[in-house]
């Protein structure tokens, strides 16, 4: 399909990228392109300028902070998450969930930063950011700030990254002793789009649960890590999920409870509790 005419720039540093992003009203970062190029085809997005982040070395790579946290460059791909020993050691759920995103080709290109910035309610990574306590670092022309997931995800396709800014890295705390993660999801076909996605982190008998696909942003609930408490906490969250051809709102509410307990159950199995 023919895209609308667009200008293109390929910066090599974060500095250059934010300057380019700030240079036009309608400039967009281009990461893996696995969402953006498609919405440009149907002209839901028609930016004047795309700023290709693919050659910015500073946005690549997975490293460990002094406290053991994983630092993921915004341009780390799903494939890199899956292959990373550092991820496997510090927070294995990230690679496990990334392995269920779409297919090989999408995983070869799609990036952590793109997944979070597009904030599609069905995307896999936003709920995980909420349960793991990840923080997102955003750069503007003048400043850098770091926000938590409840400050980052603001609405459907809307995040704290405003025009002219970019996400540079995501910091995910390593699992603490006794802490563990779980994930459960019902998808359209194997590894397809989520109908409901749930991430959970359990520590000392307490579960932190984040539910995707039911609202504009991941819905976070806390509960004691037993079935009755988890189901009740999700019921009390008064979810108002969308209805579509794949599932009614009622069915999504039902799935949210079932999957929340499955995700917590998986986390519990891993602590050996």
């Amino acid at each position, binding site marked *: 399909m023919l895209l609308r005419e667009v200008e293109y720039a390929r910066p090599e540093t974060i500095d250059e990228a934010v300057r380019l992003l700030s240079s036009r009203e309608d400039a967009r970062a281009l990461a893996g392109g696995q969402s953006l190029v498609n919405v440009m*085809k149907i002209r839901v997005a028609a930016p004047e300028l795309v700023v290709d982040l693919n050659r910015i070395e500073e946005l690549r790579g997975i490293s460990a902070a002094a406290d053991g946290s994983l630092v993921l460059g915004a341009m780390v791909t799903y494939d890199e998450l899956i292959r990373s020993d550092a991820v496997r050691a510090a927070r294995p759920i990230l690679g496990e969930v990334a392995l269920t995103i779409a297919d090989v080709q999408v995983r070869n290109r799609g990036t952590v930063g793109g997944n979070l910035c597009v904030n599609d309610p069905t995307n896999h990574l936003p709920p995980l950011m909420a349960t793991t306590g990840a923080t997102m670092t955003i750069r503007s022309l003048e400043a850098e700030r770091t926000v938590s997931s409840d400050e980052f995800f603001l609405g459907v396709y809307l995040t704290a990254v405003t025009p002219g800014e970019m996400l540079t890295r995501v910091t995910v705390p390593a699992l603490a002793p006794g802490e563990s993660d779980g994930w459960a999801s019902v998808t359209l076909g194997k590894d397809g789009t989520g109908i409901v996605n749930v991430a959970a982190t359990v520590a000392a008998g307490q579960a932190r649960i984040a539910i995707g696909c039911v609202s504009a942003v991941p819905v976070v609930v806390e509960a004691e890590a037993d079935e009755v408490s988890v189901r009740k906490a999700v019921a009390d969250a008064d979810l108002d999920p969308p209805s579509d051809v794949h599932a009614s709102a009622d069915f999504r509410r039902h799935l949210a409870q079932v999957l929340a307990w499955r995700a917590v159950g998986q986390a519990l199995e891993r602590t050996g509790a």
Partner: protein
Amino acid sequence: MPEPVSEQTISVEINGETYEQEVEARKLLVHFIRDVVDLTGTHVGCDTGNCGACTVLMDGKTIKSCMLLAIQADGATITTVEGLAAGGELTPLQRAFSASHALQCGYCTPGMLLSAAYLLEQNPHPSEEEIRRGIQGNICRCTGYVNIVEAIKSVAEGGGA
């Protein structure tokens, strides 16, 4: 700071040959390959990133070429289905597709072959589950996949893609 451009001359190596061409920034890689370089083995199926008919290898990894701008491929090395049978001799994988009747209309086949070649390069002895996951990004409306999986399996067992 690099100046934004609406067109630019790019240099791309495709199947061992270097192409230098001016492209508009809005041109998708798949159109560059098909319409400019005239290698029409790479197909456009869905144009939405779902079907995998446009799959090529870029710098050694499979990508769907309908989701990349051609201008982004500046400096890249690409293999399309035409690059598999270098010198005109089919690869064992291509022969296996033929022997196992792993294609009917053939629309998905170029992308399927590249995904299968990539899978076997990464994992020379995949299980059936791994084969199925390896071609998940390639939709075939004809075969029901059984013979495609058989073909890949036969090469995996026979050794060498």
